[in-house]
């Protein structure tokens, strides 16, 4: 897999082998996280003298709104990967347009937040990793790399 910025301010990811699609499709699985996971709710529970999780308006309006925004980011990226994969015979690259950069960045961020929550990757030493966690760490690092590509073209 290779990536390069486009003249229109987006990013083109070139698919070099079939397994690259499997790697890309894991982004959305990791971003969704466990069934009961809600990032918006989790952010509201941060420790504070004024916890937002106790604010009724926040619970009724802000959390559902953010939850929908985050879910839409994942849906849009999943649809784009799926559509590009189906056109594999004609095209072997995935084009992230300038206006899609934020959506992709957000989805990758959700994936990394979930992996960190699940495995505490930032606290683990390389020798402590079993195969499951090692795989999670490699994905985490790959997503970080794609995010840094996206940051380089982010408006």
């Amino acid at each position, binding site marked *: 897999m290779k990536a390069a910025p486009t003249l229109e301010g987006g990013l083109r990811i070139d698919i070099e082998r079939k397994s690259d699609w499997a790697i890309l499709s894991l982004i959305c699985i990791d971003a969704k996280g466990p069934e009961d996971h809600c990032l918006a709710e989790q952010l509201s529970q*941060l420790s*504070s*003298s*004024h916890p937002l999780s106790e604010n009724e308006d926040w619970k009724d309006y802000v959390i559902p709104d953010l939850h929908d925004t985050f879910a839409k980011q994942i849906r849009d990226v999943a649809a784009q990967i799926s559509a590009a994969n189906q056109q594999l015979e004609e095209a072997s690259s995935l084009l992230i347009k300038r206006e899609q950069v934020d959506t992709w960045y957000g989805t990758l961020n959700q994936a990394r937040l979930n992996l960190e929550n699940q495995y505490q990757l930032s606290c683990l030493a390389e020798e402590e990793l079993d195969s499951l966690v090692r795989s999670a760490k490699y994905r985490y690092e790959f997503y970080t790399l794609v*995010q840094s590509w996206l940051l380089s073209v982010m408006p």
Partner: protein
Amino acid sequence: MNSPDTALKEQTKTAPPWNVLIHDDPVNLMEYVTRTIQRVFGYSEQKAERMMLEVHQKGKSLVWSGEREKAEHYVAQLHGFQLKATLEQVS
């Protein structure tokens, strides 16, 4: 003696402000935090970078202070960018 209107105005004027804080986390990239502060608050790159470094080095940074409604709006925006942000009333 103050009229009720005047008393309300004085109370509003003297109500302690609310702080918006961004907290450090191991996931969000430093450049992204800087850009998000710029996008949400319209600060210069230099100011946003100084705040990002404070988040990184001291664990949190006070990024805005003012009335509650606006502070809540900013925290919601920061959460939308998936940053760890909280609201605190100045005691």
